[in-house]
């Protein structure tokens, strides 16, 4: 996008008259105008109800009732004010502060929700369900992007997340159906992810085939293979092969009764709890352990690691296999948690969205976690809105997660910096 110039070391911060980027203020201004026209002028003349807890919960919070017109105008005016602040900041020669963009995003979301729910036939939405559902939908995305973190931090681009998820889903369905145990299915899913990863590792590390091409080929291979087995075996005798038991939801007593947060954190299946554990463990291990230091070194400057006696390709191989375990477990979500049974190409490009979450989250496990949550939220919002019967056509709503992905990755990332040697095979000498 812009030229990067080598700077002399120790050169101080930007002097006056810096090269200004008007991208952010322009985007914010356009969105603020949209908000004024749609949320403000186009606001529906009724009240919008956000339900904060289920009537059967132990602690029941009162419903939040907002007048659509007033809320719409209020958010729109505040958005416009923020856009003006952004313009002023750039005119002064400094960058738009991050908090400003964050506040803008939250306000825009509130305005949008009020408007879209208010315009629906039934202006009443369960906010707690919307949030909990987002987390549930984000589970495979989070596993997928963690798989990407493990692999890319060590220097191997993992386009095969999609294939790992799909093969994990397939293996979980078959193994759980045959054995009658969802836990067996979970292990089978991890193994399936490793198989895909093994192929990725052998071809990209041992035989130095272009990593992106191997990844895409693996995705197509898994799609074809599972599709074939689905039509020739699974659908012929679904009773034996494709009726896995579901993983039970394990509610933690008391804690799961906390309003809004309870269902998100303490009312999950094993896969859901594993997801939280994986994010924390991978984060700590990556930045605080010997393994993490070596992984990052191998992904940033493999030759430096090699000259210090670290075996670069072995490190990478192990990381890619580990990435397969993580993505495979994520795949089990589709057949053991979400629905009971495998369907052709049921991952539907979630692996690629996970890749986007990885980039948006700046190759950081926690960043990837929140990015995946955002995409999960967009997906769930489109589901909920289509149920409410909004004036927005269904097709547009289903585009929402992808539009959010494109904007997030292209626009708001700022300078997201990939590991230095990601995608570059290491050859000695």
């Amino acid at each position: 996008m812009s030229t990067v110039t080598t700077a002399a070391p120790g050169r101080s911060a930007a002097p006056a008259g810096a090269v200004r980027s008007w991208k952010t203020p322009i985007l914010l201004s356009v969105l603020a105008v949209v908000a004024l026209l749609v949320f403000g002028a186009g606001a529906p003349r009724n009240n919008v109800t956000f339900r904060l807890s289920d009537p059967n919960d132990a602690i029941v919070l009162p419903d939040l009732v907002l007048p659509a017109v007033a809320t719409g105008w209020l958010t729109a005016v505040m958005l416009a004010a923020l856009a003006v602040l952004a313009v002023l900041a750039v005119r002064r020669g400094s960058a738009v502060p991050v908090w400003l963009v964050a506040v803008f995003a939250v306000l825009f979301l509130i305005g949008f929700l009020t408007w879209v729910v208010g315009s629906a036939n039934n202006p009443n939405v369960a906010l707690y369900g919307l949030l909990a559902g987002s987390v549930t939908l984000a589970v495979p995305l989070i596993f997928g992007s963690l798989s990407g973190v493990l692999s890319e931090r060590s220097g191997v681009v993992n386009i095969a997340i999609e294939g790992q998820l799909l093969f994990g889903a397939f293996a979980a369905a078959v193994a759980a159906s045959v054995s009658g145990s969802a836990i067996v299915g979970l292990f089978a899913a991890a193994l399936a992810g490793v198989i895909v990863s093994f192929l990725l590792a052998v071809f990209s590390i041992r035989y130095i085939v272009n990593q992106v091409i191997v990844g895409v080929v693996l995705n197509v291979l898994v799609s074809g293979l599972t599709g074939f087995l689905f039509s020739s075996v699974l659908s012929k005798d679904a009773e034996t092969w494709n009726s896995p038991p579901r993983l039970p939801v394990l509610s933690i007593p008391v804690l799961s009764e906390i309003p809004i947060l309870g269902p998100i954190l303490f009312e999950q299946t094993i896969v859901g709890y594993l997801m939280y554990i994986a994010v924390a463990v991978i984060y700590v291990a990556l930045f605080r352990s010997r393994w993490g230091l070596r992984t990052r070194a191998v992904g940033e400057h493999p030759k430096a690691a090699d000259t210090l006696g670290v075996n670069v390709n072995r490190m990478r191989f192990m990381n890619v296999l580990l990435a397969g375990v993580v993505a495979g477990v994520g795949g089990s979500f589709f057949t053991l948690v979400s629905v009971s049974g495998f369907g052709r190409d049921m991952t539907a490009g979630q692996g690629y969205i996970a890749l986007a979450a990885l980039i948006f989250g700046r190759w950081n496990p926690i960043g990837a976690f929140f990015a995946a949550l955002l995409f999960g939220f967009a997906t769930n919002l489109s589901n909920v809105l289509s149920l409410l019967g909004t004036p927005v056509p269904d097709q547009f709503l289903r585009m929402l997660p992808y539009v959010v992905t494109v904007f997030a990755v292209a626009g708001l990332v700022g300078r997201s910096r990939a590991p230095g040697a990601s995608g570059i095979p290491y050859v000695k000498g």
Partner: protein
Amino acid sequence: MKLELKGITKRFGSLVANDHIDLVVEPGQVHSLLGENGAGKSTLMNVLYGLYQPTEGTILVNDKPATFSGPGEAMASGIGMVHQHFMLVPVFTVAENVALGNESVGAGGLLNLSETRTRIRQISDQYGFDVDPDAIVEELPVGVQQRVEIIKALVRDAEVLILDEPTAVLTPKETDELLGIMGQLKADGKSIVFISHKLREVKAVSDVITVIRRGKVVGTAEPGASTTELASLMVGRSVSLTLQKAPAAPGEVTFSVRDLTVRAANGQHVVDGLSFDIAKGEILAIAGVQGNGQTELTEAIMGLQEHVSGSITLDGEELLGRSVRDVIKEGVGFVPEDRSVEGLVGTFSVAENLILNRYDEAPFARGLTMRPAVIEKNAQEKIAEYDVRTQSASAAAGTLSGGNQQKVVMAREFSRPLKLFIASQPTRGVDVGSIEFLHKRIVAERDGGTPVMIVSTELDEVLELADRIAVLYRGRLMGIVPADTSRDVLGLMMAGMHADEALAQATELQGGDQ
């Protein structure tokens, strides 16, 4: 520790990089390896460091044979290496870089960096390194990064330290500091293998000098040997180290730069308010340490930079804001600093590379077609004139050696009448023999009445070619001084002192010595 190499041979296919090399490094000794680029110095050191396996020969550590299957084993035997291109992970802290591969681990496999930090501070204090263990490496100046590399070796208890072309990236002041550090290390009983092609430095620090040419040891010398003696040993024939050039006869000023400012994407002024003139028939050399705006300056003149303000005029025509093609058609010849990436298309033939700037003009093109016979004939002439060593005109340019690639670039740029000639690092990585030739060509162009601008980070080259010297520091001009200015003054200017201050300080120091 005594280190001995016996009959080391390293072949890559049919290429013999090292041919039965014998070398003995005694404890507490600085042993210099002198040789041109491509002579096989780095290969030999990579063999010693376990990065390559020797085809034949043995390595003896304290008179016992040793084999190193990897750098880890070489380090365990007490060999440390500071590579020419630093082996540091740029986004890591100093402590993380030092710990890597040798980490101390606490409970649960978590890193314990505090021990590493203590060791870094210890070594840093002992040798006066002034290195902060928690600084991010990519934010450190090159000279400090090099010290981190030395610390890495010392933390691993290196007894023999291999320094591969360590001064190539340093300012004259940093170079002096490094030579001082080498003295301290030697006093501590460490042995140092110093690899260089800079005769002055080699003479200054060595106890023993071994000269390598085309993979073979061609002789050893005492540090007292004269530079011409060493140079002819290195090149294999007598070379004249000082260029014979007539004094400049500057004509009218045809090239002027006024208030030129180039901003990087982040707003930094990488070139900051430069103004200078070059007259017909004179060479202005732009000196300075790498990364002080030289690249951006030349690229701004060529039209390769965005965010440029000010004015650049050639024969009264404004060049700023014109396309690169326009600038070339105005008669500007340009040798970029990285010939393999910017100067040539490596996969194209030598003949094609020789007409890259005129492929669409007569006589090389007629209508929509190119004329291979004419292009081939042109190539034969240029190859003969510039003595380009290539198998044929149709060989891919990327297969040529550095010096020959540079000759191709120069031949192309000099093949049409020029109103301005700009060369960035014209002889970087070029063998001594070719340097002589290329320098003569540049001076010939000057004598033909072309204004010439040379950008070089090598002070030797600057002093050799320049009629006037402009020193850049952080994008600013520290002054324009005559060609006979002393190295000390130039060194101070390259470190950010204005010409008059530098001159005053240098005179003062000189006065103090007497």
